């Protein structure tokens, strides 16, 4: 089997054109929940579960957090067992902590983790949501302006009806690395929840 080509460091990423970094900027650090089986790329949306760990997407009144690192980044994890089960090493550090920017902070962000072919083209002021799924790589924590999440065609996200975590600012474009990104302002706007 041929070797797998490595990824480029900007293929799955969160950029922060405005509002970060400041020494008191609102970020949050936690471990990824073992419930998450998909690869949690930088730029995806997570929330904090009852155990204080990150799970993918938005649910109920959860606050969105936009991941700065992937769970496979070298400052997050260093697995020491080969796919065949052989021992290479046991990492003392890194300890599995990830961090992200909290939606209540004041930023404009650009994420590579969005539905690049939405049912309705992204326009300024569209609300964005992100499906809560810890297992589906294509949709879990992926930003989209469709109320059914990435890949959906149910119509635009509605305020107070779906969980919203962002408002489109400059929309979809190719960045300096020729990678599609979506520019938006993060917000906290949960669906009405009884």
């Amino acid at each position, binding site marked *: 089997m041929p070797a797998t080509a490595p990824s480029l460091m900007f293929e799955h990423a969160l950029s922060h054109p405005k509002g970060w970094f400041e*020494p008191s900027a609102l970020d949050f650090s936690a471990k990824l929940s073992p419930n998450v089986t998909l690869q949690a790329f930088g730029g995806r949306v997570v929330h904090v579960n009852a155990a204080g760990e990150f799970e993918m997407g938005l649910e109920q009144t959860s606050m969105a957090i936009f991941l700065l690192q992937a769970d496979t980044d070298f400052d997050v994890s260093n697995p020491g067992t080969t796919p065949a089960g052989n021992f290479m090493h046991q990492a003392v*550090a890194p300890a599995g*902590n990830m961090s992200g920017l909290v939606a209540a902070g004041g930023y404009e962000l650009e994420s590579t983790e969005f539905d690049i072919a939405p049912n309705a083209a992204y326009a300024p002021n569209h609300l964005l949501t992100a499906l809560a799924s810890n297992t589906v790589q294509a949709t879990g924590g992926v930003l989209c302006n469709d109320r059914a999440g990435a890949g959906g065609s149910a119509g635009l996200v509605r305020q107070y009806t779906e969980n919203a975590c962002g408002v489109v600012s400059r929309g979809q474009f190719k960045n300096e690395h020729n990678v599609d990104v979506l520019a938006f302002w993060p917000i906290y706007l949960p669906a009405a929840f009884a």
Partner: protein
Amino acid sequence: MATQTEVQLLNETLFEQLQTPGMEKQAIDAVNDFTRTKMREDGFYRRVLPPLQISNDELDRQVDTDKPVKVVDKEPDSPAAISIPFATLPVNVYIRGPRYRVMFDRIVTPRFVKDVDELRTWVMDIRQVLSDNAIKDMLAEEDSKFIAACNAVMIGPDVPVPYSGNVVQWETIDGGITRETLQDARKIMPRGPSHLEAHTVLINNVTIKEVEKFGRDEMGGDFSQDVIKNGWSEANFMNMRWIITIKRDLVPDDTLFMFADPKFIGKSYLLEDTTMYIRREAYMLEFFAYQTCGGSIGHAGGIARADFA
């Protein structure tokens, strides 16, 4: 120990440096020297596996990330030598060796904030005020990550470790802590395929009292008398260096961690040693400490644990 007058003088000097343009570096250096010394003295991770300072040109660049990585070679295994009759040739072994990557993350304390006018009334050393909480927090994080890695590598109590000759490295030993059971604990590590001897013992400050109970016939003559009079101060005992910790949440009661010589355990690197960031803006002082470090246990056979029941 410095007198109160000396401490006040020290504090005033530090304040002057913090207030004088161009002198902030001297103030920060004074705190850094103090902090780094304390870090070296107080944490057990650094005493078991002393960190090596690593520079930028010792890092190994990767294609898919700009995050720092150090690749470490492990000694390759080799098949045993065999006896053969004359006119026979040896088998070929193509040399391949394992490697592993050490990756880095940052340990950072909370950012402490204080009005400088409230600090003026402190009669204790301000460097200590600045660094004590920071050091405790950072050492707790370092030590807990190390113990978590040790426990993970040994899998669990009385479970054979498949990548270390299928021997048990975390063993429950019945009979409490006695001269005999301590020797049984010392057998755990040499039973492995690497036949290593324990070089360092890690024990908590409650369990060590059980060892202090040893009588003259168990511990050896006047040493027993000295321990009962003065408490445990012996750094070397049973041909092992003993480290005593108060972190009972990490090193439980009636438990002994044993470590081989550091070169048989793994690598610990410091990319940026403990550094105190101090900033004064008007009358508000803020400070936090951070360090960038990485480490891995490369050889599972260099660690053992005994739980005395």
